């Protein structure tokens, strides 16, 4: 059986895959938010807290730093990471903790590491919890507004409800499933990470628009030919962008970069499911009903 025959026979059944993925994601996010109080785990810039970057001569284990911080700060919400790729003879570390003062972290580090931390080797980013929460709400609000605006523009472009809804739902699918993956990977989201989610929407819509335009507007050949053509172009797009994001993720030293590129890469993978397993099926059904095309 050729791929065409298989697809034409099973395109409705294939819709089950995205539906199951979507439902699983919703369930996972519900459980996650019950346990964590929110659908995303926020970093200190979005929930308030201190991020301290310091450079010292000696090498210290991350676990060791974590354990004395937990003990002395009386908090379990502590993250310690190495700084990679810095051009310095010293070792760099980043420590994140919420609900503590910058000066406290400084003195705890000094006491346990037996070093003096000054303006030259300690850099602190401190965010008040009220501001952090405010930022988070604003970023989520921006995401929602972006989603609505995108939907309106799609509706204006295609002027038909079902294909437009398919695009909008596909973007929603991408966001929801990507957020679930972010939680699953244990990523603590930053403002930049949420900006990356907005961009996923952009990329998601790109492939959907390509598909919808080829199937709906440029009606050459059978539906299968149009879908196949759009998929060939669309998958090339996704694979190139995915490749670029993956390489960028692997070789970036900045944590801001790494998070953004990882999130975009995840979103691109999710979008393949949304576009080619879900959106194609919906469009095919729509074309059959409306234009009786096969």
């Amino acid at each position, binding site marked *: 059986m050729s791929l065409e025959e298989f697809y034409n026979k099973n395109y409705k059944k294939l819709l089950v895959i995205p539906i199951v993925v979507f439902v699983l994601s919703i369930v996972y996010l519900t459980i996650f938010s019950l346990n964590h109080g929110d659908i995303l785990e926020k970093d200190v810039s979005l929930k308030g807290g201190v991020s301290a*970057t310091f450079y010292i001569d000696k090498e210290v284990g991350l676990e060791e730093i974590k354990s004395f911080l937990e003990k002395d700060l009386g908090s379990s919400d502590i993250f310690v990471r190495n700084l990679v*790729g*810095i*051009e310095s003879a010293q070792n760099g570390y980043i420590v994140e903790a919420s609900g503590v003062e*910058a000066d406290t972290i400084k003195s705890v580090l000094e006491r346990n590491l037996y070093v003096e931390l000054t*303006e030259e080797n300690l*850099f*602190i*980013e*401190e*965010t*008040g919890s009220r*501001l952090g929460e*405010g*930022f988070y*709400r*604003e*970023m989520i*609000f*921006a*995401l929602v507004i*972006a*989603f609505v*605006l*995108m939907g309106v*523009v*799609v509706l204006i472009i295609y002027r038909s409800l079902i294909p437009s809804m398919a695009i909008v739902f596909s973007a929603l699918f991408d966001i929801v499933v990507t957020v679930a993956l972010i939680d699953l990977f244990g990523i603590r989201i930053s*403002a*930049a990470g949420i*900006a*990356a989610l*907005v*961009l996923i929407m*952009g*990329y998601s*819509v*790109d492939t959907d*628009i*390509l598909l919808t*335009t080829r199937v709906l*507007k*440029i009606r050459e050949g059978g539906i299968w030919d149009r879908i196949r*053509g759009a998929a*060939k*172009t669309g998958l*090339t*797009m996704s694979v*190139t*962008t995915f*490749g*670029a994001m993956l390489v*960028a993720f692997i*070789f*970036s030293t*900045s944590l*801001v*970069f790494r998070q*953004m*590129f990882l999130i*975009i890469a995840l979103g691109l993978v999710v979008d393949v499911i949304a576009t080619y397993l879900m959106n194609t099926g919906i469009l095919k059904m729509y074309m059959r009903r409306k234009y009786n095309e096969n």
Partner: protein
Amino acid sequence: MKIKKLFSIRVIILLFVLLLCLIAINPNPYASGLEVKNVGGEAASQGIKHGDVVESINGETIESIEEFNSVIGSIGVNSTFIFRSSGGEVAYITTQKPEITVQIVRTNNIQKGLDLSGGTRVLLRPDVERTVSDQEITNLIDVLNNRLNTYGLSDLQIRSAKDREGTKLVLIEIAGASRQEVKELIEQQGEFEAKIGNDTVFVGSEKDITFVCKDDGTCSGIRNCDESANGAFCTFEFQISLSGDAAKRHAEITKDIPIGAEEDGGRVYLELPLDLYLDGQLVSSLQISEGLKGLETTAILISGPGNGATQEAAYDDALKEMNRLQTVLITGSLPFGLEIEKLDSISPLLGGNFVKNAFFVGFLALITVSIITFIRFRKLKIVLPMMFTMASEVFIILGVAAFIGWRLDLVSIAGIIAAVGTGVDDQIVITDEVLRGQERAYNWKQRIKRAFFIIFAAYATTFVALLPLWNAGAGLVRGFAITTLIGITVGVLITRPAFASIVEKLLSD
């Protein structure tokens, strides 16, 4: 095929825009030397300015930041200081250590944001219950700007922001300042009051204080240092002039205060001192000589202490305290108190590394995209124009950023990569449409038109999706929206049409 055919009007437009961007970026890779980044105190009042390119200090040619720091560090008080720079020669006898920091001369017009250059970022919220008007925020920004400048921090950006509830915030970004300094300068509302007993003699406003001596060794400086129980202490002194009204008040209040007992050295003071308060806290108590009793004096000598473990530390502390007090007296108080909501100090070391890394990563991403597209299309005729288009887009985004003076930060660079990513997508759409057209011998123009319908539709949706990022989170991710928007706009209007034209010509051959 003739090369000439490639230069369609669309390609010429692209080349022209690239030329404009080259002018905007103004690369000058051979520029070298150091320029003044921040200058304050005496050095500033003697005429040394931000941006002056350093030539020599006291005849010694300066070539590196280390060299500069060691030479400037060796200059103490009462020494000759001859500073030669692009701004001319400044020479004087120091009454304080020169407060100058330098940076390597910029080799182009692209400005780096705080997370790439290092520095301090503060986000402030007015500490008042009522709503603050736009005018009040403008005033606040003026006073803050003036205060930081007077203190000697000139490389700074201040702007207002708003959260979703409409609360106004103020965002300050300062290159090369210490966290502690910034905190102290900003947390002080700066309400100054001088009292004798419970009576106010004068307050820190232009009405009462007509002149504050700063950076002038004849009426301001560190006067004496001595050992103390905990190390050392130094005393600063500077002169201020009172208005006639304030002087009258001084006379009124002091005339009723009894004269105290004679002290060691035969000096006699009034029983009550002149207490100086800053934001309700006692900074210094000055004894009043008996000769001033009931006198309308306009010249007042303000003094105060600085402490430290060593004399040098005490000297620096006294200098800092004096500078702060002078700054507050000159620039007046803030219209209201401020609460620090966010205070970030960012390492310049890390930022410098990020820039290099971003170039490297960008290059790798470009190579990756080229390899994947080559595997798919197997034609250098397609891949080479694609690489050219991607590189052009990066260059144009940088050019526009330089032109509008946008400071590139990390999220801006991520935005560039994202924009180029969508660019590649569009080029693939164009290429596929052109190739398909070739297979079926359709009309080229029709093909490209179709490709551009898809591209414009995708552009419109991404454009509107990015807009809400503009103000979210005090505008700290605005850079992402800006560079992506510039990139995709330039893409649909300039680079992708040019790409379509090039590919069309190359493939039709």
